[in-house]
């Protein structure tokens, strides 16, 4: 027990003890049940010390690597900060924000990202739900099919991107090879400006659908089978059962999946970065697979314009937060 209380002391002693305890007597000081008051609330001293001690590593790391980046992002957004010489950053008021809204490349990146979100999210949600409904039937060989649909989830985004990049390659790519053996004349550049974004949509949906399928499946398994029996006794057909039992039951799951998928889709970066390193620029120089997260990354780290990059990030965060919070609110009202 001795070593133990020593450890506790160590854990607690990193932090300054609350001030008003100096008057306490020697006997009382050793008591683990001493209390103190702060802002009208009563706390047990030993709990406070240990609590803060336990929290300290997370608190310190969290302040440096979670909170500080937000503060840095917020403050640099109003400066002309340059990555290689941060100390000379000067306040330039709202100049960055003026640039953000008149930057054609930003609008292009936002447009590309929205295109991806608008196609990929409904597609992936629909496929995931469809797969879950198929697998929810008691069919022999269910386990095999579940693993089959889930298989791509095991590939990391980088592996998925490199794999499909090679499958879709103009030279020595599987798809071009097979299509040409079926009579296509010239190889198609699936990763160029014409098809690039759609290729990324397909790859992302292929990789991710299995994961949401699993979430839907656990939602579906929680529905009482008795509900369906009661409904069929009342003469409800399969479609009515789906609309009136299945859909309401999985609505909370759906709303959660939708919000996380949307935010994830708005943050698309790895797939275009690997599959189209030159952002698939078309003849006019428009980068057809440049996304917002990638543009923020490029501005901040490739061109070292931390100030401008932070300003875009700030605007984008407000945009994303509005979407996420609105959606959550709308979905909650429905429940």
């Amino acid at each position, binding site marked *: 027990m001795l070593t133990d209380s020593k450890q506790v002391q160590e854990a607690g002693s990193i932090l300054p003890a609350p001030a008003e305890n100096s008057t306490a007597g020697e006997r009382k000081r050793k008591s683990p049940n001493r209390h103190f008051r702060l802002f009208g609330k009563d706390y047990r001293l030993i709990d406070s010390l*240990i609590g803060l001690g336990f929290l300290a590593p997370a608190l310190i790391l969290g302040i440096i690597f979670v909170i500080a980046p937000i503060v*840095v992002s917020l403050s640099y957004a109003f400066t002309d*900060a340059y990555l290689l010489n941060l100390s000379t950053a000067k306040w330039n008021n709202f100049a960055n924000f003026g640039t953000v809204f008149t930057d054609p490349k930003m609008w292009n990146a936002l447009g590309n990202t929205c295109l991806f979100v608008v196609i990929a999210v409904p597609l992936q949600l629909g496929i995931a739900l469809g797969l879950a409904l198929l697998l929810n039937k008691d069919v022999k060989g269910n386990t095999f099919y*579940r693993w089959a649909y889930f298989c791509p989830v095991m*590939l990391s985004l980088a592996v998925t991107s490199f794999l499909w990049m090679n499958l879709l390659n103009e030279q020595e790519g599987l798809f071009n090879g097979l299509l040409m053996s079926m009579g296509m004349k010239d190889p198609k550049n699936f990763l160029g400006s014409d098809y690039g974004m759609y290729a990324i949509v397909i790859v992302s949906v292929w990789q991710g659908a299995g994961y949401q399928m699993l979430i839907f499946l656990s939602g579906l398994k929680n529905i009482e089978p008795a509900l369906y029996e009661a409904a069929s006794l009342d003469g409800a057909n399969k479609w009515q059962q789906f609309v009136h039992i299945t859909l309401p039951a999985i609505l909370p799951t759906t709303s*959660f999946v939708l919000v996380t998928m949307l935010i994830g889709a708005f943050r698309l970066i790895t797939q275009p970065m690997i599959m189209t390193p030159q952002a698939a620029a078309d003849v006019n120089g428009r980068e057809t697979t440049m996304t917002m997260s990638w543009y923020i990354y490029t501005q901040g780290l490739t061109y070292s314009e931390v100030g401008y990059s932070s300003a875009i990030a700030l605007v984008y965060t407000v945009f994303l937060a509005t979407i996420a919070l609105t959606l959550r609110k709308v979905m909650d009202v429905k429940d």
Partner: protein
Amino acid sequence: MSATLIMKKRTPVLDVVEQQVDPVKTEELGGAEKIFAAKPKKKWTAKRIAARVCLYFWMSVLAVIFLFPVWWMIVNSMKSNTELVAQLSSMRTFLPGNIKEWFASYANLFTFTAFVNPETGGSLMGRAILNSILYCAITVAGVLLVNSLAAYALSRLKFPGSGVITTVVLLLILVPVETSIVPQIVILTKLGLLLPATRVIGYLIPGLVSPFYIFMFRSYFVGMPKELEEAAEIDGAGKLRTFFVIIIPLSKAIFATVAIFTFMGAWNDYVFAQYIFASNAEMMPLQVFLQQVNNVQPKDTSMVMAALTISTVPIAIVYIFCQRYIVEGVSFSGLK
């Protein structure tokens, strides 16, 4: 592979034995009892058989769509590149190649001249695997310790600021902050953690704390009965001892879930790692090293597929052996 991903198993509807027993039972029962009797088993009518065949057909088509790229990746990692290119435009591209060549590309990854450090003679591919394992181990250990201790403090101990911090943790999960990697790189640069010598620390340390994992641990701890801890306290055990001797053994499930998710996140990390280790092939984790393999000229697709397969194996093993915890984690995240 035999265990199902979803644990709850219902009795199979199509069991032949039940079909034989059932009609007799339903005939004997009458009126209201009929309703509450076991669900009557449907007969195999032509319509039902057709529906089943149709279902299997579509499920199989979908399975092919989801599986063929992965199958192609594995099969073609086990061919020589000349064989791979020659077979591209025929269906033989989906069949295994010459057995003598099966592991040639894998061996090539470790001995290829561009992937051997000229000074030490060590294989960069081997180094990348080692780096990935090391980074993952440190991240998993750190994440478990830092976040579980914080969550325990927030769920069980009352101290000034605990309420505020809990709210901040929840806010950080709810609001999608585009912190991206730019401000993190700025902070790491300022702290001097991106120098050649300190780069590894700079790479690992930001990933140790996660509001989401604190939240996950906290939800679990809040639901645990307090009696055991109180008993331990009466017996004179300190909080730290209670945590390690009582709390951790009782919450193995949540520790395993967080460990698995952290491992997968750390193993699969790409964007952050490729920025930090772009100029340092010796320190690259496997996911970033894939870029080096992919860039080899003239292009060796078979070797790329071998590298992709190697980097997927650990994740596949985790999924196959730890399904229970993954499903738990997935359904946890599905609870809103």
